[in-house]
């Protein structure tokens, strides 16, 4: 990661510091917008102003992380995600582009010279590329369950609020001889991805998405006794944790489950740990591999801090750390920049990578 701000600290913020002040910057950006685009959506009723503020803060965090990520992937992905969502909501490109520029204008006076140039480069690129973002093959719009009858039936049941029916689909697959591991690959992973797509397209409500996700987690958890009693092996140990506060912890948990099915002993710590508690837990468990995940790129700084803390402790310094999650997929070099030893975004790939890391470390 680029080091903004050295010993002879120039006046002004680094980009990382800017991200921490996203809400302040968003308020400034809203004033800029009020002045520049009178009568825009952001100048309406209090409710839409609040939404607008939230969106601007979101831009600040994501554009800041994009500025700090190697390559163009992070920015491209954010724009594709945004475009798919905003097009569906009927936001015009012009308004979105104006908000990028407003964020740049609000941030510029706060930033140190080098950081300012880098950040403005990102806001300008965002403004220029947004209209074509995602293109025809926007990955947020591609389907995940075509031809997968079981996943289709499962997801329909959840979207109709019939959790027991969905559980029945999973149970009948298991009863038919599918190892629990295969349910992850055939059922739960495609169903979750499809759920994300439907939400993005506006075909389901936030409440439906939350319900279906919660129900799938519950259904998976009812398979845990089987998963754990079937996979005792004395294999290597994986300790997995999400960035603190990360709302999307299900993906990493499913990956940890997959490791368990592959013969690893896995500890999943959730997304509630402050960095120092994570380090203490790693010291206690002494895993063969530590896996950290962030879904929102705004949470990447936590991962960076966690790795730095692990590296600074004598007892945890040598432990291999792998990272995963969307920010690392869209910016393929980001894992190196945050100091990780490896990166993976999928079940099979994660196990292969972890096996390699564990072998190398031992």
């Amino acid at each position, binding site marked *: 990661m680029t080091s903004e701000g050295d010993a002879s600290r120039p006046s002004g913020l680094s980009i990382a510091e800017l991200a921490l002040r996203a809400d302040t910057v968003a308020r400034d950006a809203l004033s800029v917008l009020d002045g520049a685009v009178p009568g825009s959506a952001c100048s309406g009723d209090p409710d839409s102003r609040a939404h607008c503020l939230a969106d601007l803060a979101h831009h600040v965090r994501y554009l800041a992380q994009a500025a700090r990520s190697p390559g163009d992937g992070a920015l491209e992905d954010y724009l594709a995600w945004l475009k798919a969502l905003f097009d569906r909501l009927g936001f015009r490109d012009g308004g979105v582009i104006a908000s990028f520029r407003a964020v740049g204008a609000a941030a510029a006076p706060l930033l140190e010279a080098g950081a300012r140039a880098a950040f403005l480069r990102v806001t300008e690129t965002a403004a220029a590329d947004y209209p074509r973002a995602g293109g025809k093959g926007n990955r947020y719009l591609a389907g995940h369950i075509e031809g997968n009858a079981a996943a289709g039936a499962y997801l329909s049941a959840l979207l109709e609020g019939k959790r027991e029916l969905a559980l029945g689909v999973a149970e009948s697959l298991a009863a038919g001889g599918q190892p629990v591991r295969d349910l992850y690959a055939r059922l739960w992973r495609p169903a979750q991805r499809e759920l994300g797509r439907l939400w993005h397209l506006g075909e389901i409500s936030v409440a439906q998405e939350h319900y279906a996700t919660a129900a799938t*987690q519950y259904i998976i958890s009812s398979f845990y*006794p089987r998963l754990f009693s079937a996979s005792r092996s004395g294999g290597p140990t994986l300790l997995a944790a999400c960035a603190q506060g990360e709302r999307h912890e299900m993906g990493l948990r499913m990956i940890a489950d997959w490791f368990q099915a592959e013969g690893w002993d896995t500890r*999943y710590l959730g997304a509630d740990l402050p960095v120092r508690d994570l380090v203490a837990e790693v010291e206690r468990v002494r895993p063969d591999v530590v896996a950290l995940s962030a879904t929102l790129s705004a949470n990447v700084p936590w991962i960076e801090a966690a790795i730095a803390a692990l590296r600074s402790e004598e007892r945890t310094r040598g432990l291999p750390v792998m990272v995963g999650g969307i920010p690392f997929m869209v910016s393929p070099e980001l894992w190196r920049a945050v100091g990780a030893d490896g990166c993976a975004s999928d079940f099979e790939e994660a196990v292969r990578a972890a096996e390699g890391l564990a072998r190398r470390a031992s």
Partner: protein
Amino acid sequence: MGSAEEALLDELSRINSELVNARRELSRLNAELADKERFLARVLELSPDIVYVHDIRSRTDEYRNRAFEDLLGHGDRGGASLEELMHPDDAVRRPAHLAAVAALPDGAETHFEFRLRRGDGSWCWFLGREAPFLRDGSGAVIKTVGVAEDIGPLKERESRLLDASLTDVLTGLRNRRGFEAAAGEALRDARSRGAALVYVDLDRFKEINDRYGHAEGDTALKAAAALLVRNTRDGDLAARLGGDEFAILARGGDGEAAQRLAERFGALVDEWNLASGKPWKLCFSAGWAVAPRGGQTPLADLMARADEAMYAVKRGRRQASDGA
């Protein structure tokens, strides 16, 4: 949907996630626990020692491992607790021992040696190590856990070693220590019917050693010992006190009996001399002393008197042979 509803949904999702995480960890711990249980069950099955959990209040064993059956062979009739199988001499000490365990802090243990009856009626020695296992709300021990090691072989070896220290290797008779221990006990017995102590000292033994060698000397000692044993009844004690000195404690004997014993021995020796084909003869002097019935005669006293009597005989014999 308003932002309040969204926040509520997010909070519900977070709670759900935490519950699922907890369920995951619980499943993992359960599997780990099941593993440990399996491990412990295997260890307990393989243990050569009896392992038990004893409930103090109901005086029953709540658990006993397979070694209990393997070592004792009671089948289903093993009794409710080890105590029921204990030798009476050990069972009387058991309550005091349990009280001692109950007074221990956690992590401490006490030791206790006891015998248990086998299915075939024989006794088996155990070394028990017992510790507090479970306490009630007030901290009082209500269950103990114990490991009982079969120390039968150890006890046997111990008694063999004890025998060795009390036995004369050459003749197989008791040595002086062995004799004093057994004879002292016999004399202290208040129900003693009296006893006669006969001292026997080989004459001219030194000549046999000097002229025919130590091997012949040993032969003479072994022959004398064998004749002494033939001359004793059950309950009598024969011993080699050292060198060429022997002793017999004849229980229930008086002076007459002692004299008869000495005469019978003389006859056996004559018989042996005729048949031995040796160029030397066994000769001996004997003297005796009597401990009266019901009396409490000290052994040392009895031995001193018998020794004195024997020397008187020996002196008389020398004078007679010198005068001849």
